[in-house]
C-alpha cells in the first residue's frame, strides 16, 4: 500500500473561482521516488505545501484527501496534524540561501527540531547531527556546526539542508526544486547525494521540479502536472521512451539535449496547449455536473 496517497485534491484562491489544483490524485509508495513535473503555475509546489500544511493563507483546499500512512491529514485537528507531519515528513527547500537562519549557527539549526519537538537529549541530537553531516560528505562537521550560514557556499548549505531533512528519519521527504539555485556541477553532486541518501535510508521522496533531465536522474516514477491537473502518471522508463500525453511529448521535445546532433528545440506547439486547456476545461465542467 502507498505511504502517501492523495485523492481528488482540489484547491483554489480564496474567494476566486479559478482552481489551483483540480482533483489531483497521486500515490507515493514507501521508499519510492516520485517526480512531480510541470511548468511554472502548474501547481506542483502547491501539492508539496498542501501535504506539509504550509499553503499560503490565500489558498484553500476545497475537497479531497491526503492520506499519510492511512491517516487523512485534512481531517485532523491542526495540532495533531502538525505533530504527525513533523515526525513523519521533512522538506528539502529550493533556496539554500534563505532556508537557513542567517543569525544562528548551523549546529542548533539541525538539532533544535530533534530536541524541542521530538524530545531527544541534546547530546544525542548533536551526535546525530555530526553523523549526518559526515554522511552528506561535509568535511570537518565539528567546525561546520559552529559556523554561520554566510560562511558556507551554496552547495554546502544545500548539503546541510539535506542532512537536516534526514535527521529525524522521516518516512517521506518533499524536495521542492532543491537544485534550481545551484550551478550544474554542484547540482550533479547534490542530486547524486540525494539519491544515495534516499537509497540508504529507504525514505519515500516526492521530488518537485521543472527539469525533465533532473527527474530522469533521481526518480522512479513521475506525475506530469498542467494547470493543476495530473496529465500523466508513468514510470520513468515508460515516460522517456513513450510518453502517453501529447503535452508530455511536447514538453520532452522542448527540453534541450546537447547530445542531439543539431541541438534543435521545438517549442510546445500552440495546438497542444489549446488541446490541453480544453481538457482542463472539460474536467472542470464534468466536476460541476
Amino acid at each position, binding site marked *: 500500500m502507498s505511504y502517501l496517497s492523495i485523492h481528488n485534491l482540489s484547491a483554489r484562491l480564496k474567494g476566486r473561482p479559478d482552481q489551483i489544483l483540480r482533483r489531483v490524485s497521486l500515490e507515493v509508495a514507501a521508499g519510492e521516488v516520485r517526480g512531480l513535473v510541470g511548468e511554472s503555475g502548474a501547481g506542483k509546489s502547491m501539492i508539496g505545501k498542501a501535504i506539509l500544511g504550509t499553503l499560503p493563507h490565500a489558498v484553500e483546499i476545497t475537497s479531497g484527501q491526503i492520506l499519510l500512512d492511512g491517516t487523512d491529514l485534512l481531517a485532523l485537528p491542526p495540532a495533531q496534524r502538525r505533530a504527525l507531519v513533523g515526525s513523519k515528513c521533512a522538506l528539502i527547500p529550493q533556496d539554500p540561501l534563505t532556508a537557513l537562519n542567517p543569525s544562528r549557527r548551523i549546529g542548533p539549526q539541525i538539532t533544535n527540531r530533534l530536541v524541542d519537538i521530538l524530545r531527544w537529549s541534546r547530546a544525542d541530537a548533536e551526535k546525530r547531527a555530526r553523523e549526518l553531516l559526515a554522511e552528506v560528505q561535509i568535511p570537518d562537521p565539528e567546525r561546520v556546526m559552529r559556523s554561520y550560514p554566510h560562511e558556507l557556499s551554496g552547495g554546502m548549505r544545500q548539503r546541510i539542508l539535506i542532512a537536516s531533512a534526514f535527521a529525524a528519519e522521516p518516512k517521506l521527504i518533499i524536495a521542492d526544486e532543491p537544485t534550481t539555485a545551484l550551478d550544474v556541477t*554542484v547540482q550533479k553532486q547534490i542530486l547524486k547525494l540525494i539519491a544515495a541518501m534516499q537509497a540508504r535510508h529507504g525514505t519515500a521522496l516526492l521530488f518537485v521540479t*521543472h527539469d525533465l533531465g*533532473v527527474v530522469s536522474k533521481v526518480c522512479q516514477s513521475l506525475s506530469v502536472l498542467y494547470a493543476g491537473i495530473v496529465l500523466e502518471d508513468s514510470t520513468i522508463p515508460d515516460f522517456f521512451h513513450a510518453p502517453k500525453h501529447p503535452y508530455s511529448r511536447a514538453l520532452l521535445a522542448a527540453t*534541450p539535449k*546537447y547530445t542531439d546532433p543539431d541541438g534543435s528545440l521545438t*517549442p510546445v506547439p500552440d495546438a497542444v496547449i489549446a488541446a490541453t486547456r480544453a481538457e482542463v476545461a472539460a474536467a472542470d465542467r464534468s466536476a460541476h455536473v
Partner: protein
Amino acid sequence: MSDIYPAKLYQIDNLRLSLADMTQKPLIGAAPRLEILKGLSFDIPKGEILGIVGGSGSGKSTLGRALVRLLEPSSGTIKFDGQDITHLPETVLRPLRRRFQMIFQDPMSSLNPRHRVGQIIAAPLKLHGISNPKQCALEALDHVGLPRKFAARYPHELSGGQRQRIGIARAIALKPEFILADEIVSGLDVSSQAQVLNLLETLVKDLGLTLAFISHDLSVIRRLCTRILVLHQGQIVENAATAELFANPQAAYTRELLDSIPLPDPNQIWT
C-alpha cells in the same frame, strides 16, 4: 584584409576588472579589491553568435556588462568597431550606445514596472532622436511576434516569456549592431525558452546582428551559438567553435560542465 578575415566588431585584449569587496571592508579605509576578470583576450567577428558559458562566480555577467560598458574595466582594452571604448566617459559613450544593446536576465526587474510597454520600447528611440518612435516601437512588437495592443500594457500584466520578448523588442528597436543577452532564458519554462531562443535566432539572421549570449547552460547554447567561450574563475579556459567544443572538449572544466548536464534520458548514467 577584410577579404581574408571577417571584420572584428569587438577586440578584447588582456581585460581585467576588479570590484571593491564590501563584505571584507575594514571599518576605516578602502575595501579590498576583488579581481573578477583576470586578463581576458578574444575577438567577436561581425555576424558571430558567441556563447559565453560558466558557473556562478565565473565572471560571465561581469564580462558582459563590461562589453556594453555598464562597468569600466580596470585595465586592458575593449575596442568596438576599431574604437577604444575601455575608459570612455559616459557623455562620449552615449551616442555610441545605440550600437550595442543588452537584454537582461530578469525581465521583471529590467522593465520599469510603472511604465507601459510602448513607453518602455520607445524611450531609448526618443533619446537617440529617432523619428517616429511610436511607430518604430510598434514595429519592434511585430518583430518579436507580440500583438500591437500590448503597447498599452504594464509589464506585470504579461507572462514571463512575453516580458522577455519586450526586452528583446526594446533592444532591437534601436537597430544596434551588437546585442548582449545575459541569461535571458534561465527564468523561463522550457516551452517559452524554446520560443525565445528560436525568435532570437531568426532576428539575428534577419537583422544581421552580432550576438553574445551568456548562459550557465551549455545545452541551451548549442543550437544558437557559432562559437563558445568557457569562463572559469575569471579566466577563459576554452574558446572553440561550437561543433568542435561539443565533439572534442579540450579543457577539463568544459568536460566537467558537459558531464554535469542532466540529460532527459534515463539511460545516461552518472559516475
